[in-house]
């Protein structure tokens, strides 16, 4: 039920978490399950109940963006996804994204999504090289990506993203080049490229901890990042966040909310939400979510209220990830100048953004600026004296 009275209002995103997958990828530590197929219908019902309750309570004003993430939202039958989406009040130009596994979509499903209002698809491509996909524990055939992208376009969904991962064991530089090239050949307006990250509680994490699998190499990933930035930026898709590149106008509006400390509502298990100064998250397991909703209780599992100083630190860290950059606190001006001299920051006056090399060192740069902005008694000791 799109609304048309959204001019001048603060943006609001709605994130819907679909915690089901056909198989689990070796590197994934998201809240998702492969053995809860029997719960799907009840879960969709619970999301619908949750949404109705929030609308009735006036918590849910028309959304500027909706994002179905997972898990694998595209495992949902079209009518199930449509039932949820229909409950979300939306503005006329709302962006509605569904994360899709190239294996689990086809023409009819995507057409049904489009009819319900989905206007953006994000495909989990990861790699276009079969041996790299195998190393990641993925099974799809790269040819499915081509078919899925064509089917989406066929269904009228032009706003497409391809998710890529670099740095898997056995992925050569040439493999990565080939993946980038094959991805661009599909002409997506938006590409996300992520460094493979080893999370301890995953099959990959356990293998790395046990020493049976080498972890990603920082230098290799740095080189691949630089290559991605060159190729994607050079193709008319400049970076707009550390791991995101898009043609101007095709930036993900929902994700931009995250980096601007915008407001978003979380529906479903493990979904996070933010209202000014308050971050909250829902219970992690789908069963717990069903219990809470059935009992008429809030699914919220926890929350934190941020004081102004913490919010300011958080804002700096988030904004620095984006091309728009961040304004530097006066106390950190000297540190910013040093980082600029080191080639990690660029900017004018108080507003700075990360250079390509700086993006690769975003955490270090942010920590330095934060440490400089929060002066403290130095504990360092003069050197070479007794």
């Amino acid at each position, binding site marked *: 039920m799109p609304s048309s009275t959204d001019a001048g209002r603060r943006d609001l995103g709605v*994130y819907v978490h679909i915690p089901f997958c056909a198989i689990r990828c070796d590197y994934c530590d998201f809240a998702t399950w492969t053995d809860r197929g029997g719960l799907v219908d009840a879960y969709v019902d619970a999301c619908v109940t949750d949404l109705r309750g929030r609308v009735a309570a006036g918590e849910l004003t028309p959304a500027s963006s909706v994002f179905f993430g997972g898990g694998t939202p595209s495992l949902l039958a079209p009518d199930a996804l449509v039932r949820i989406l229909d409950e979300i009040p939306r503005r006329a130009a709302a962006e509605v994204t569904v994360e899709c596994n190239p294996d689990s979509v086809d023409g009819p499903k995507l057409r049904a999504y489009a009819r319900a209002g989905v206007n953006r698809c994000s495909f989990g491509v990861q790699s276009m090289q079969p041996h790299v996909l195998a190393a990641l524990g993925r099974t799809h055939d790269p040819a499915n990506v081509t078919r899925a992208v064509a089917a989406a376009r066929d269904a009228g969904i032009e706003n497409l993203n391809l998710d890529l991962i670099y740095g898997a064991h056995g992925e050569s530089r040439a493999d990565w080049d080939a993946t980038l090239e094959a991805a661009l050949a599909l002409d997506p307006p938006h590409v996300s490229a*992520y*460094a*493979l*990250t080893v999370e301890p509680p995953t099959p990959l994490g356990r293998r790395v901890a046990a020493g049976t699998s080498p972890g990603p190499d*920082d*230098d290799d*990933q*740095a080189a691949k*990042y630089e290559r991605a930035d060159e190729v994607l930026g050079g193709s008319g898709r400049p970076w707009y*966040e*550390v*791991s995101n590149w898009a043609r101007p106008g095709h930036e993900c509006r929902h*994700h931009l909310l*995250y*980096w601007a400390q915008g407001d*978003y509502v*979380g529906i479903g298990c*493990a*979904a*996070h*939400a*933010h209202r000014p100064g308050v*971050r909250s*998250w829902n219970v992690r397991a789908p069963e717990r979510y069903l219990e809470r909703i059935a009992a008429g209780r809030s699914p919220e599992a926890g929350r*934190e209220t941020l004081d102004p100083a*913490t919010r300011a*630190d*958080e804002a700096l*860290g*988030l904004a620095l*990830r984006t091309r728009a950059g961040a304004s530097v606190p006066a106390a950190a001006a000297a540190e910013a100048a040093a980082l600029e001299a*080191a080639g*990690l920051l660029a900017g004018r006056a108080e507003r700075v953004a990360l250079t390509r*090399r700086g*993006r*690769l*060192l*975003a*955490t*270090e740069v*942010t*920590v*330095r600026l*934060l*440490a400089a902005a*929060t002066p*403290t008694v130095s*504990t*360092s*000791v*003069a*050197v*070479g*004296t*007794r």
Partner: protein
Amino acid sequence: MTPGAGLDIARSRCFSLLSHVDHGKSTLADRILELCGAVDARSMREQFLDSMDLERERGITIKAQNVRLTWRDFVLHLIDTPGHVDFGYEVSRSLAACEGAVLLVDASQGIEAQTLANCYAALEADLTIVAVLNKIDLPQAEPDRRADEIERVLGIPAPDVLRISAKTGQGVPELLDAVVDRIPAPTGDPDAPLQGLLFDSYYDPYRGVVSSVRVFNGTLTTGARLRYLQAGATHEAEEVGVRTPDPTPVAALGPGEVGYLIAGIKDVGEARVGETVTGAAHPGAPLAGYRDPKPMVFCGLYPVVGDEYADLRDALEKLRLNDSSFTYEPETSGALGFGFRCGFLGLLHMEIIRERLEREYDLSLVATSPNVEYRAVRVDGAVEMVDNPSAMPPPSELETIEEPYVTVTILTPTDYVGPLMDLAQARRGEQTKLEYLAEDRVELVYALPLAEIVVDFFDQLKSRTRGYASLDYEPAGYRPADLVKVEVLLNGVPVDAFSTIVHRQEAQDYARRMTVRLRELIPRQLFDVPIQAAVGGRIIARETVKAKRKDVLAKCYGGDVTRKRKLLERQKEGKRRMKQIGRVEVPQEAFVAALRLDES
């Protein structure tokens, strides 16, 4: 016989038990106490021998103890001595309190290095030696052969060597009879000015310092005003007593008596081993042989966590109440922060102090590599004692560096002479003696730099001889040597904790080892960081920590924001705890790890 009152000096004997580790000294002491009806063996052990946990664990005695016993119609004063080379001076003072010594030798193992060292020390103190072969009940015992060995090596006639089993008690009464018969009675004048020798002191939290004392002349009376001649202080004898082994107060101790003395002293440094106590009103002369304790081995001790500095200082102060033979003074290290430079009598002493600090005071400590005290002779002839390598003057200002030497005596089965000569030679040893004590046993004597034996010489000796060789050493002055200071530089800035002084030939090896280790431990920075080792400004090894290229979270979406913020907060805190060496930030843990590796 009432202790301390009218003791017939002719019926007193003062003696100690000397033995190599594991030759059965504790077991023999148990038997003697039982035979003399002192206490049952178990409570005796708790009161008499090995009173610290550490002593019991390591099977060594650190503190001298004494007990007063009755055998037939004689009073025996048994004085136990510390059992390790680090405490040679303490041993010498315990022996000075005796007229004789029982030298215990394992009937299967024969004479060991410590047996020799003990025997020489006893002879030096003019003691009558009663040699005893122990463990004759064991099948591998060879008492005839070992008795011959004792005659040949120590010059004690083989027929005089007693044969006992401390375990079964066989021969122990005869041994006590021999103590009475052979060891001379003390002499002394009860009416002369008081001369009492303190040969041990410990700190009791309720009573203050409790000293062990042997009276030579005069009478030590409860309530008397006493003059401590070395400390130059006057105290009142609050309590005088004997240990039976229960502490039992007495009115007075006369010549030839051994007991304890409590005089309201709060610091064992005021009642040092070797001190002479005398009457304040009519002082006697100081007894010969007093020496200030002299640390031989030094290291920096630092809290792993910087805010434990004050706790460490308090712990050192308290520990020193009980052991005045170690020294400490504050020092500051660029790498390790605030800590103390500490001096010890030897390596074992160092380990004991450090373990006690960690165990009894719950501290986590890092120690820099142990070093000796060097004599730096400047070009203008001025001499400076240097106990911290980073304080060594630059080569251009130095005429020469002298290092302390020790005379090392090694006793070994013949089979291992080759490997031991290799070891000693690799440590710059100079052989001064090689003598066959028996056809299967050799005495090797070397002049060795102390620095070469402080780290792992003893372990090497044991592993090359499957534990069969034994070692003893004593200081032997200073000698000039071709020594250099190796400095480790991080991005051009010296890191004091890793400065060391080594022989020129070993500099390269140390330099390579340390630079590689630090390269592995120092986190990557925003720029390449050279790690160099230098001698006199010349670089002899170099490694590089390559600049960090990637430090970024790949994803930052709704659920990641909180996690990311917490990570940044942690790193921000971590940054504050970083040691800043020039432009390089190093977590203290990296330095700690490098030093810990050096110990293994």
